[in-house]
Structure formats: structure tokens, C-alpha cells
């Protein structure tokens, strides 16, 4: 056990390794070779990288983004790459940075938790265009993009409101953040616009991606009599629960009908190719400059999945009527009168809520059963 000198030798080696490395680091990147050169060889004008929060196979959020990626990958002047399951927070900085170092000039970071890492890396790479999904921080080379998902949510609410018989609609929700709350409210408004007796019961899972837990939440809603299940989750767990019980369901992110062929009525879905193609073109033309994109039904960045055969024509017509009104800009979802759960008027008759108020939404509208967890 006593082997001071031998130990010291390996200790020396370890210390040397670390210190030499640290020295190299401190002296800065004199020998930043390789990566860029290699990249330059085959360079397409737009080299777009995507940072994903979960595996592409999640059938939800990331799959929707990857469909968008594939769409621009088909463009002649674009090549794409992606990394799956990148942790949110500072770990992501390395991944983003490695794309920069490998010569990618357009980087999409597709989850809220990448906001600070994106801003941090962008500060060191002024020539690269960054687009961060769902955040609010911008810079000269960082823009944001998101969709008015509340619009198709409202439409799917109409479907649920007309299809329910028990007048209890279950909603499996992820985290109590404004985006999710907005979706629940829009959904409830849609349902009650056609069925004032309907109520929307909410369960929070505090997860985005946990198939078992999300499925269980749906089951408990079915247990209390819900006959339509909607969800703001990235797995098809709730769909499968509804399918098994012979009830209806509304999907999210993607057409989830393959997981619940009988139950799945429709789903509010993303079509990210709309914004991805726009940004790719702008970068290619050199016309891109930082902006915050929040597109709606009119752009097609959000929409509804095809209806199940079980959805009668009358329902389809009702949905189409409202869709046309929203897409034309004639009317939007959060137009008064809107009351909160306690009956207080929040938006007066004829007034439409501002984007700022929508982005910070912290209340439930009338007809929603549930509370917003608030620890303060």
C-alpha cells in the first residue's frame, strides 16, 4: 500500500495532463483547425442544425420538428443535422457550440430550456443565425419562433364539446406554464361555444414525456366519467388509455390516430416546415434579421389533423366555420366576453386580448375544473 513514489509518478502524469490542457485552454484557440476545413469542403450554402430535447421516435414534439427538418433538407441549398436527447440547461451549450464549430450557419434550438444556452453561444458566433423555439430572449443573431396553438385547440374543443355525452372532458396537462394554460382555456372556450354544459377537468402530470404517468392520468379522468380525453403531452399515452376504454380522444403535436384509431377524433398539430422553410430561404438570401415569429392558422404552422370517420358532418362544418373566421383575422379565440372560473369578467365584450396578456396567462376560464398550482 505504501508506494509513494509510484503513486507520485501517476499523480504527476494526471496533473500534467490537466494543467497542460488548462494552459492550452487559457491561451485560446490558436489551433482551431480541422472542423471548419472539413466542413467547408462540401458546404451547402445553408447548413442547418437542430437541437432536440427528446428522441425523434417520441411521436410528439420532436417528431413534429423533425418532419419540418426533413422538409427543408429536401431544399437544394440546405443540408441538415440534428442531435437528440440534449439536456436542457448548460449542457446544451456544448452541443450548440459544436455545431457552430463544425460550420453550421443556422441553428434551431427546439425547447424552452435551450434559451440561455442559445443566447450564450450566439454571443460568441455573430455570423451564425439562431432560432429558438418558444422563448422570449432575442439578440441580433437570435430570433424566436412559435405558433398560435391555441387556435386549433379551440377548434378541437368544438369537436370535443359536440361529441361528449357525459359533458365531462378530460385534459391531461404537462406543466402549469402560460402556454399550457392558454391551450386549456382555448379548448374550454371552444367546447362551451357549442355546449355550455360541458366542463373541462384538468390533471397536471408535471412531465412532458412520461408515457406511463400520462396514461395513468388519463385513466383517472376516465374513471370520473370523462368521455373525451385531450392532452398537452408529448406521448400518446392518454390516447391509448381512451382507446382501451372505448372513449374519444383529441391528440396533440402530430396526427396520433395510429395509436388510437377508434378514439382519436382529431388533433391540434404543428407544421414547423412553414417557419423552417421561411428562415432557410431568408438565410440563403441574406435577408434574415432577428424577429419573433408567432404564426397561426393563416400560415398553417398550426392546424388540425384529419378527422376520424366518427366525426359527423355537422361537427366538421362548425369547425370549418370558426377556422375560416380565425384564419381571415375576422375573429380570434380570446375575444370577450371571457370570465374566469369565479365568474369575474376578464375580457369585456368585443375586446380581444393582447399578445402580451396571452403570453403571460395565469388564470382558468369558466368551465375549467381544476387549479393552477401556485406555490407562492
Amino acid at each position: 500500500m505504501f508506494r509513494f513514489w509510484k503513486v507520485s509518478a501517476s499523480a504527476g502524469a494526471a496533473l500534467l495532463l490537466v494543467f497542460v490542457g488548462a494552459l492550452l485552454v487559457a491561451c485560446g484557440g490558436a489551433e482551431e483547425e480541422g472542423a471548419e476545413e472539413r466542413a467547408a469542403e462540401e458546404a451547402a450554402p445553408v447548413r442547418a442544425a437542430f437541437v432536440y430535447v427528446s428522441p425523434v421516435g417520441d411521436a410528439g414534439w420532436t417528431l413534429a420538428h423533425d418532419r419540418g427538418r426533413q422538409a427543408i433538407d429536401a431544399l437544394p441549398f440546405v443540408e441538415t443535422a440534428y442531435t437528440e436527447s440534449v439536456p436542457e440547461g448548460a449542457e446544451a451549450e456544448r452541443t450548440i457550440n459544436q455545431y457552430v464549430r463544425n460550420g453550421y450557419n443556422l441553428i434551431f434550438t427546439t425547447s424552452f430550456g435551450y434559451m440561455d444556452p442559445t443566447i450564450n453561444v450566439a454571443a460568441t458566433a455573430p455570423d451564425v443565425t439562431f432560432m429558438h423555439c418558444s422563448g422570449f430572449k432575442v439578440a441580433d443573431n437570435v430570433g424566436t419562433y412559435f405558433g398560435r396553438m391555441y387556435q386549433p385547440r379551440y377548434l378541437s374543443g368544438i369537436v370535443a364539446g359536440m361529441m361528449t355525452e357525459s359533458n365531462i372532458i378530460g385534459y391531461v396537462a404537462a406543466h402549469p406554464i402560460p402556454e399550457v394554460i392558454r391551450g386549456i382555456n382555448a379548448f374550454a372556450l371552444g367546447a362551451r361555444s357549442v355546449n355550455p354544459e360541458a366542463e373541462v377537468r384538468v390533471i397536471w402530470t408535471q412531465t412532458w414525456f412520461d408515457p406511463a404517468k400520462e396514461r395513468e392520468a388519463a385513466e383517472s379522468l376516465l374513471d370520473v366519467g370523462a368521455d373525451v380525453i385531450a392532452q398537452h403531452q408529448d406521448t400518446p399515452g392518454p390516447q391509448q388509455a381512451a382507446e382501451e376504454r372505448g372513449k374519444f380522444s383529441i391528440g396533440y403535436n402530430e396526427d396520433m390516430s395510429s395509436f388510437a384509431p377508434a378514439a382519436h377524433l382529431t388533433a391540434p398539430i404543428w407544421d414547423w416546415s412553414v417557419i423552417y422553410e421561411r428562415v432557410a430561404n431568408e438565410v440563403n438570401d441574406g435577408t434574415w434579421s432577428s424577429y419573433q415569429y408567432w404564426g397561426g392558422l393563416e400560415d398553417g404552422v398550426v392546424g388540425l389533423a384529419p378527422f376520424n370517420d366518427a366525426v359527423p358532418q355537422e361537427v366538421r362544418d362548425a369547425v370549418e366555420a370558426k377556422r375560416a373566421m380565425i384564419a381571415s383575422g375576422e375573429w380570434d379565440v380570446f375575444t370577450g366576453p371571457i370570465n374566469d372560473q369565479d365568474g369575474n369578467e376578464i375580457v369585456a365584450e368585443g375586446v380581444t386580448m393582447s399578445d402580451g396578456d396571452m403570453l403571460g396567462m395565469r388564470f382558468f376560464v369558466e368551465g375549467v375544473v381544476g387549479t393552477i398550482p401556485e406555490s407562492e
Partner: protein
Amino acid sequence: MSDSRAAVSMRGVTKRFPGVIANDRVDLELLEGEIHTLLGENGAGKSTLMNVLTGIYLPDEGSISVAGKPVRFNSPKDAIALGIGMVHQHFKLVQSHTVTENIVLGLAGGFQPVRLSEAEGRVAELSERYGVKVDPGAHVWELSIGEQQRVEILKILFRGAKILLLDEPTAVLTPQEADELFVTLRSMREKGHSIVFISHKLDEVMAISDRITVLRGGKNVGTVQTSATSPRALSNLMVGREIQFQTYPRPEMKGESILEVKGVSAEGDRGLPALKDVSFEVASGEILGFAGVAGNGQEELAQVVTGLKAISSGSITVDGRPMAGASAKDFIDAGVSYVPADRHGVATVGDMSLTHNSVLRRYREEKFGQGPLLNLVAASKYADRLIEEFDIKTPGRETAVRTLSGGNLQKVILAREMTTRHRLLVVMSATHGLDVGATEFVRETLNHHREEGAAIVLISEDLEELLSLSDRIAVLFHGEIMGIVDAAQAEIETLGLMMAGERQSEAVA
């Protein structure tokens, strides 16, 4: 010349290990329906012989026949197939499984399913038939030690064994549990089973066995009918009649009293009483020997006077300092050195170097470092000194002591414990397993330290050693001191009787 009633007959069995002959041409005949005790001191070769009989060891020479047919075991499985099973001292049970599950464990070959309910029925039937009381559905962790032993016995019976070997089965039992065990053993004997019973306890041996074989130094020194012998005769056989020993000149040099033990009682690891009301004194320049058959409280005695075991009553003083509630460190600080019996398990750290081991109990001393620091240079020099002074055969002081031979390892321990300034030296089985030269060296060293004025507690199973070194000899039996005799006047036969449980007054009379 095989007896038709012999269940097992071993002829001329010899088993050698490097440097030792564990069994030297041993004959043993086990009859059908008898309880046969194997008696002997530690290291006499009992366990080796049983391991040969259960197929764990292959004998170097000799033959074994079972039910008159010569056999050759290649593995324990072969022995089990012939109906020989052993209950070890340390049970091999899965605590979280039930009794029945433990019994059938490893039985069914391959992927054949075991029908547990069927097995449970058979276990219940067996336990009824032999009077082995245990609930087949109970989990092992719920059972007392005695009940766990019954599970081991059932395990063997379940496999159809006719011949049972029990290795010191009563060592872990309470007297009541031991009595119940004997009832079981007798009932098995009636049903034609043959039992080999290993024990040190002469009273038990007399009570339970039909015949007794005594092993000494790896040899069979006699097989006797129990009815035709006595504890005295047995202890003489075990110890050996003709002891030749060199007596060291023992000038009277007793000084002031160093160790005083008054009315001390203590519990063993199982919570059973191990020492009962023990009192004695050892003075400077005196060696007090402790004799006794193994397992009669010697280990606990050594632990109590070195602070490694708490006492439940009584008092201990070292050099006039009361040691109530003192830790092992306090005893070390008070100048108590200790050479334990277990050299590998207790006295040394096998994977550490000789240097480290040489300061194992001394690393706090000022000479081995300042403040919180350990001065390994000083320790190395000290190790070098020990190697030279004690003539320790080792490739170097950085060698892991695990690789040293028994004699050299003992030298390391003795060297460490004796080169310190001690007031009291506690030594247990100091020469056990050592060759003649090493033994002589240890004895001379002990005697030298006595002359230097140390008080020495010498615990040994070797009467010869005790007689040659001690000033006085105390005999332990069942945790009590049977008497303390002057070594110069001690008679081996008297000591033998005391070791068998007779008080000094009775033994002398």
C-alpha cells in the same frame, strides 16, 4: 475385513497440506445406528477428516468404503449421493427464504420445477418422524439459531442421508437447545442412522456417544466404548500422556500486581454468557497461563483484558488504573500488548505492507509522526529493525504480509507487540501451527519479557507450553475458573480433570 455393520469405514487415510500432515494414516469405522464422537484439540485433524469423508478433499492415501463397498469421492455431490451429509458450524441458509425453500434449494436438476407444496408436506413429515420441530413455512430469518440448525439437519435428511456429520453442533446452542438436539440425535440413531459428532465438551461427549475416537496430531490415538472410559481418560488421550518439555529457569521475580480482574462476567457474540465471575491477578515478572479446552471462554477472556469486549459486571484494573468503560485504545495507552490467536483475521491486515503492519497498534506514538501526520520513514526504519531483530523472512518491508508464512507472520506480530514498552502482555495460542524452531523462538521471547518485568497472560491449549512457561496455571471451563495451580507443582492429570469441569478441590482430592 469389513464389518457387515459398518456404515463407513476409512482405512489409512492420509491428507497432507504444504508443510503439514493433517491426517496421518487414520482409521475410522462408523457403525450403523451409532453416535460416534470425534474428539481432539484444535488442529488435531478432525475437520480435515470430515472434509475427506464429504468429498471436499481428496485423500492422498487410504481408502473409504460405504456400506462395505469401496468408494472414491470426486466432489461433495458424490458423498451426498451415497447418503453422507454434513451440518457445518456456519449455516448455509438463505435468510429471506422459507424453511422448505431452503431445503429444496439446489435439489431439482436443471429447469425441472419444484413442487413446493409437495416438498412442504415431506418436510413436515420428516420433522414429525425425527422430532425436529420447525415450521416448514417459516422464513429463516424468523428462526432462532437452534431452529436454523434443525433446518440444516432436515436438509440432509430430505436428501435421504443415512450418515450425518455434525461439526461442533452445540457450540452455538443454549443448554436447552442442546438437550433437544440430543433427543433428535437419539431418535435418528433408533431409526438406523449413523452420526459423527464433533465436540470439545467432554460432558456432552460422555452423555451422547456410543463410541469415541480421539485424534491427536493428525493420528487416531484410540477408539473407545463410552461406557468403558471416563472424562479423565479422555483428556489424557487428547493431551497426550508423555509430555517432554524444557522448563525455563524461573527465578522468583514477582513484582507489584499489574492486572487485577475481579468478578468479571461477559457475554459471547451470540449473547450467551461466556465468562462467569472470573477473578485473578497477574504481577510484574509473572506468567499466568490459562488452560482449557477450546471454546470455554478463552477468546472472551483475552478480549476483556484488552478492551475489545465490554464486561457485564465486575472490574478490571491495569497498573492500578480502573478500566471501566475503557476502549481498546485506552488499554493500548495503558501499556497492554496483545497477540491474538487469529493472526490473519485480527492481528494483521493482509493486503497492507509489513511496514504498515508493524505500526498497526502503535501508529499513534510520537515516534511515528507529529500531530496528525504519520511518518512513514520512521515506520520503515522501525520495520527494518524488526525484520533484523526477529529474523523475519520476507522479500522486504513493502511486501504485503498476506504472503508471509505462518511463523513469519507471527514474528511480525510478536515483534510489534513486544518492542513497545508494555506493562501487560496478553498472548493467545502463540505457537499454534508453528514449526519447532519458531515455537522455540516465541517461547524464549516470552520468557525474556517476563524477566524484563512484564506481566503476561498466556492462553493456550498446549499444556506442555503452559507448564514450561507459566508461573501459575488457571483452568477455564464453561467460562469459569476451575482453579489456579502453581505450575511447578501442577500435575497433568489434575489439569485434565479441571479441563473436564472438575473444581480444583475435587480434582486434587
